[in-house]
């Protein structure tokens, strides 16, 4: 008798893989584009779940890494298109639109920022941690807003999408499947990490950090490593987002963006890897449908969020999967 959890996962996977085909068949290819957006946000939400759901690090600055990934792609594309050298780098590199260079670079740079920011923030804990991550995200936001070189407040348009060998990133379906593949790969990686020795340390820190320290674990290092991995995931999502909207703006780094991502994680079910995907899908779907009814749909989101926090802590995934939600071996 297959477990509920397996069933839910299977259905989810099926929907993910079959969606573009169904959309085409229904004559609504636009849905594929919307779905791509969902998958991109699912990726950044899963990356946040890694530190939030499993490590209890309430980072209000995760949007910063999302934005950094996007800006890396934006800046490289901008220079490539304009054929100008990147001023702050040595040599005369004029950027590139090759995804195989851009996207890993986005991850690496987001990871480096996560390393530096995390190194400072993780020295604090509790509410101080929440606030300092928020402050750093805002710092980056204001910095990018004041820098006119890359659009300042108005942001940067991407005149070309990233290029992948053999594939056409302008084809919505192909773009969807590339995004889908990356999301699934990251989820599989996250699952592996969570069940590993490293993951156990992280989860131990969430449950009882004092005991972890007493056992001899230098918890700072582990949390920092997790923070960097999560940052890299967000960076990858940012690279995809830049391609998807063909636009990069500092708004991606704003703390309210981090808040939305956090909502996705909580709504879907934190500490579950699959939950954030559900959360992203639900939130963005709500946005799509409700904004069709009224431009003031947010006035419903607010109380809905408060309701979820107060009464439905385990999120949608918990509701779907029941008691098995905790078992993540």
């Amino acid at each position: 008798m297959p477990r509920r959890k397996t069933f839910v996962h299977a259905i989810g996977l099926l929907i993910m893989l079959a969606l573009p085909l169904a959309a085409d068949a229904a004559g609504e290819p636009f849905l594929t584009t919307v779905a791509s957006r969902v998958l991109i946000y699912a990726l950044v939400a899963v990356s946040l779940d890694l530190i939030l759901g499993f490590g209890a690090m309430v980072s209000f600055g995760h949007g910063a890494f999302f934005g950094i990934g996007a800006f890396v792609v934006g800046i490289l594309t901008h220079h490539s298109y304009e054929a100008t050298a990147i001023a702050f780098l040595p040599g005369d590199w004029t950027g590139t639109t090759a995804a195989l260079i851009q996207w890993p670079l986005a991850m690496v740079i987001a990871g480096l920022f996560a390393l530096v920011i995390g190194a400072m923030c993780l020295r604090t804990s509790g509410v101080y941690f929440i606030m300092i991550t928020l402050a750093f995200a805002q710092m980056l936001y204001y910095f990018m807003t004041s820098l006119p070189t890359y659009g300042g407040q108005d942001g940067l348009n991407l005149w070309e999408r990233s290029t992948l060998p053999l594939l056409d990133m302008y084809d919505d379906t192909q773009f969807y499947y590339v995004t889908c593949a990356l999301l699934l790969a990251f989820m599989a990686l996250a699952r592996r990490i969570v069940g590993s020795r490293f993951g156990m340390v992280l989860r131990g820190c969430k449950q009882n950090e004092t005991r972890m320290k007493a056992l001899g674990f230098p918890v700072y290092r582990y949390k920092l490593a997790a923070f960097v991995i999560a940052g890299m995931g967000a960076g990858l999502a940012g690279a995809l987002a830049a391609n998807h909207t063909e636009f990069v703006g500092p708004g991606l780094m704003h703390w309210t963006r981090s808040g939305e991502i956090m909502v996705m994680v909580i709504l879907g079910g934190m500490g579950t890897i699959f939950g954030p995907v559900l959360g992203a899908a639900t939130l963005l779907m709500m946005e799509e449908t409700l904004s069709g009814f009224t431009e003031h749909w947010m006035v419903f989101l607010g109380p809905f969020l408060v309701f979820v926090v107060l009464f439905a802590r385990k999120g949608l995934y918990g509701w779907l999967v029941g008691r098995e939600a905790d078992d993540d071996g």
Partner: protein
Amino acid sequence: MTADPILQVTGLTKHFGAVRAADDLTFSVKRGEIHALIGPNGAGKSTTIGQLSGEIRPDGGRVAFNGRDITRMPTYRRARKGLQRSYQITSLFPEFTAEDNVAMAIQSQQGHSFRFWTRARRDRALRLPAREALRRVGLEDMANLKVTELAHGQQRQLELAMTLATEPSMLLLDEPMAGMGRRETQGMMEILRSLKGDVAILLVEHDMDVVFALADVVSVLVKGSVQMTGTPDEVRDDTEVRRAYLGDG
């Protein structure tokens, strides 16, 4: 086996404002011995444990473990050197199973944990010793139960299993039997007795029956310093001690 004490405390002092929790405190614990620390309320027993475990910083004095000065060493490093503390309040990982908890303790001893691929729950290097430690404290049947599903006494046993799993050379126990019923206390005493000779134990206890049944040596702590050290019989018969504890004998 050398005759050097495993733990040497010299002139330890700690003030909390006007209160002298430790006042030129000096004593030592030999390898494998069960050393009880008794004294009236407020004598500074818990503070002593805290200073030995590294959670409280002494104002003065010296603590030497295995010959090495650990006075300012952080808790986690003392743990790695073999000096472990077990807690009065259970401090476990509530969402993990009993076996997970012990495995965590074992994992802490096996080098770094920057291993991202192998599933920890299937790692025999962790699971086998974990089950062995659970067996030692009689919890092998509860291995797959979550901590939240264990009774209080079983949680205390789990605590001990975790501490033992790290193969410490000395344990600091602050009232390990607190809140336990008769039977659980007996069980715990058996476990502690089985450790004699292997693991040195510094035991803070109020229950005199336990002290007399288990301890090789007893130190009486009064107002932050050791008034006397001796065998349980010597201490029981000492008039000064009786006065400090019971008023006039």
